[in-house]
């Protein structure tokens, strides 16, 4: 129990006393927002997992690509 309390206060006081860390956390959060919202939603919104329902369809798509590209 004491261990959990110490650990909790470590995080609590650590975040409460941030100085340089405050700026760094703002940068981290802004960066994650841009990456996970803007980039993921607008530019990397489609993968084989989102595009096809099951692994058979995914395999077929890749096999089609592997075979059709033969010169």
């Amino acid at each position, binding site marked *: 129990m004491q261990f959990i309390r*110490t650990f909790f*206060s*470590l*995080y609590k*006081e*650590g*975040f409460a006393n941030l*100085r*340089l*860390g405050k*700026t*760094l*956390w703002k*940068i*981290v959060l802004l*960066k*994650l927002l*841009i*990456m996970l919202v*803007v*980039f*993921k939603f*607008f*530019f*990397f*919104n*489609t*993968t*084989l*997992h989102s*595009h096809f329902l099951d*692994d058979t369809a*995914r*395999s077929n798509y*890749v*096999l089609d*690509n*592997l*075979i059709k*590209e*033969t*010169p």
Partner: protein
Amino acid sequence: MNELASVDWSRAQFALTAIYHFLFVPLTLGLSFIIAIMETLYIKTGDAHWKKITQFWMSLFAINFAIGVATGLIMEFEFGTNWANYSWFVGDIFGAPLAIEGILAFFMESTFFAVMFFGWNKVSPKFHLLSTWLVAIGSNLSAFWILIANGWMQYPVGMHFNPSTARNEMSNFFDVALSPVAVSKFLHTVASGYVIGALFVVGISAWFLLKNKELLFAKRSMVVGATFGLLTSLFLALSGDESAYQVTQHQPAKLAAMEGLYKGESRAGLIAFGILNPNKKIGDNEPEFLGDIEIPYMLSLLGHRHVDAFVAGLEDLVYGNPTHNITPASERIANGKIALQALSDFRKAKKMSDEVKMKENEAILQTHMKDFGYGYFEKPEQIIPPIAISFYSFHIMVSFGMWFIALFALVLFFILKRDIKNYPLVLYAALWSIPLGYIAAEAGWIVAEVGRQPWAIQDLMPTHIAATHLGGGNVAFSFTLFAILFTVLLIAEIKIMLRQIAKGFEGAH
């Protein structure tokens, strides 16, 4: 044709992301160990100056870490959208190491990072020290898993291709994880991070000495940085030697491009300095270089551990060399086409549930699988990597690597035997060598990745086959956005770091 045009943008985007990502990674790898050593000195001696020194470098470590964290995430997005054929084809071989890396990084970072930064007065000094070491070890272990995945692309082993699913399935985890290419790649890459960490510490300490500020702190930091730097830069050279040996054994076209070697030779010399002849074409009689300085026998020694050994040139690899048992690329292209035809016939047989034909074609496919990727080429010359980029990047990397050994030795001599403060030339050299470390590391990655072309996976999958264009967005547009975002991040890092450095050792809590 649209897909073909997007391949170049996808490649450019991946290169941009990887290059920016690797501006942040090496400092994390190297500085984490230097901080751990400094804190160990604090615990051993009880001298409070060492604590301040540790905290100062830790604050710079935090800035680099915060700005760099998750920049690698974009590469994972790119794999899914721009490189879906590749991602599917590599199967769990790529997925398993990256998943281990993700889990490991998350647990290590969320627990021991917190203790390292928040725990100075909360946990015992020894537990704090343990956390600092674990952060260093954890960061380096993360790199290990990623470099295993990269090593497999350079030298695919420990797997079996399943023609029903179009995926490679891992048959032996240890063959993948402990492949000599993956291990040498890991050692060479982390060693480059250690050298960058040392250059950073020595260079910034030099700046303090030039400004006549924080003399005790700067000198102590410099001793740790230069000692660590000298040892790791020597190790970097050794691991580079092993890397070159592995490249010769498994990617001979890359080695030939790195050395501008068109015609193979026994007792081959290593080019110490050279200017490539831009008019040289494979198969003609033009000289390879406009001018060069060669170290005799060295390439044979480096590539085969024997001065008399034959080192294959690009012409041997493209047109074959029966004397040295080198198969011409045309034969490998023919084998690759047989493999591709067998894959196609296997599919047809599967649709018709013809078990006999399926087995027959799978056997043909597996027999020719080692040349599978060659089936996508028409001309043997298509297997040649970009020569000029590989050659110059390799020579920049090696030259800077040699300079770093000399620099660390010089700094150690002047700080231990003389008053280094009176030798501003040495201090300026240390300061201005910081960017050289980054240039050398990026040049090394360019050698590894551009030298591997035209392959995404050596001999199995050419880059243009690996690429897809599944996303709705325009790759060229997202490339520009990435360039802007990463440049802003880099400027932010430099600005915050400079501000923190200016505060000095006393203000770094």
